[in-house]
């Protein structure tokens, strides 16, 4: 049965338990950081940071400041454009039970820029040592044992939920109605095309540049479709060269 996440940013307090929990479960080392005047650290996803809480501060014309938190991660798209952009059939696989989009060791043979550019959310990162392209794997090792993904398990605020897609969609829809009473602009981000559904209380751009997959301007086409189609010729060419 396909699984999904529901991430309610209205309950996120940016404790970054999810960010740290992910690294701890995967036994990733610390990444050197620098104080840049923001709590967001490291500044972006890395090959050792599959989960990153993004901090975005805004001031409106009345001088009211809001501080938005966005616990970014791979969306595990239902039709993953990164898989469409891959040149090998089994470098990127979809787990049939959960829908998790998994990058295998064979991504080391893929063109990183092609894969990264195909992602509307700018998620894939390159491990410079192994050359593998890496990202969140839905903690597939835990989920196969009926255990919650580590980020969900770590969330002390109840902002993150994980379960069967149908149940998660119902939960998200119910929560959206409740949040919209106070925040009419609240929305669920790309819920029809992803397995990681964010609830945000304001415009997506006030959370993160890639909070949603914008339409690329092509009529009747989402950005995901556009990018997947755009890289199809490149992928075919790469295949021919590789033989």
């Amino acid at each position, binding site marked *: 049965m396909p*699984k999904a996440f529901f991430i309610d940013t209205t309950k996120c*307090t940016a404790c970054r338990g999810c960010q740290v929990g992910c690294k701890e479960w995967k036994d990733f080392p610390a990444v050197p950081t620098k104080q840049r005047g923001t709590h967001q650290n490291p500044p972006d996803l890395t090959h050792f940071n599959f989960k990153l809480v993004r901090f975005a501060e805004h001031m409106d014309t009345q001088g009211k400041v809001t501080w938005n938190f966005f616990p970014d991660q791979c969306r595990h798209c239902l039709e993953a454009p990164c898989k469409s952009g891959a040149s090998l059939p089994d470098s990127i696989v979809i787990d049939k039970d959960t829908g998790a989009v998994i990058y295998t060791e064979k991504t080391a043979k893929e063109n990183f820029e092609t894969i990264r550019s195909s992602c509307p959310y700018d998620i894939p990162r390159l491990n410079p040592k192994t050359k593998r392209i890496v990202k969140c794997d839905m903690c597939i090792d835990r989920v196969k044992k*009926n*255990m*919650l993904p580590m980020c969900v398990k770590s969330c*002390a*605020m109840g*902002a993150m939920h*994980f379960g069967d897609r149908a149940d998660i969609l119902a939960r998200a829809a119910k929560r959206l109605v*409740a949040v919209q009473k106070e925040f009419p602009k609240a929305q669920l981000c790309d819920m029809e095309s992803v397995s990681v559904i964010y609830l945000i209380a304001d415009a997506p751009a006030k959370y993160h540049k890639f909070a949603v997959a914008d339409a690329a301007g092509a009529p009747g086409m989402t950005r995901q479709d556009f990018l997947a189609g755009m890289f199809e010729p490149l992928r075919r060419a790469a295949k021919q060269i590789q033989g």
Partner: protein
Amino acid sequence: METIEVTLARELGMNPALGPLAAAFGPVLIFRDMRRQSAPGWQGPLPPVDAESFSGGRPLLPEAGFQYPAEGFQEAALALIRVLRNSFPGLAGELAALEAAMAGGRIAPDTLWAAAFGRDAAVEGVEPRTLAFVAAEAARPFVARQAEDLLAAARELPWPGSVCPVCGGAPHMSVLRKIGAGEDFITAHGGKRFLRCSCCAAEWTHKRVSCPTCGCEEPDELVVLRDPERPFERVDACKRCKRYLLCLDSAELVSVPPADAAALVMAPLEAKAVARGFRPLATHVWSGLVG
């Protein structure tokens, strides 16, 4: 909550050594669950609840105990015998004798019901232990269903005891359950500890760091046994009274398994507890086979 079948299928995939236990007791647990859902529940007015007495530690049920379900009990018992015949081929002869005795009127259904609660009963060709086992398993779904109705009547009242607030039975398992999320407020989502009655399957809350048998709360005397690969399961044991209690941390899980099925797959942990000299506070039907 997932079904018993789904739980056992997944767990057997990860630990095939559970096969014989699952083959024997899985159908019994499935029978219990199905029959509990269709059982009639408490009939007529619920017993009056003396709030002060209850809050002082007196369980709900008077001495008379659970109601005998005149309709459906014999049929359920006969259906159970068919399940047990497949699960325990070694008992085939005794089960056949019991089935014949029931069909021939040599043991009345209410006598069998009473045997479930320790009253004397005898059937030729059936060992007393076998009779008691069949009677208890036949009664269990009806008892559990009645307990649901009874507990609902006292849910808002504080219960201080370590024994069952419905029937006074001892717990044989605890479950850490997430409390339902109130959407208006952020609340921590760790699990509250619910003890589970070995007799009627009622659940009630209890302190997490406390032995239900003797009340010990000393960290040095409370032992936790666990398999690092399965952090959602553990045995809580007490060095002071040498008793143990299984514990499922359902807050760790995607799908929460039924408590009885979760207890069955914890048999390896239970065996570890027995090997270290601890005894169960109350047993499951398979506990005698473990350790």
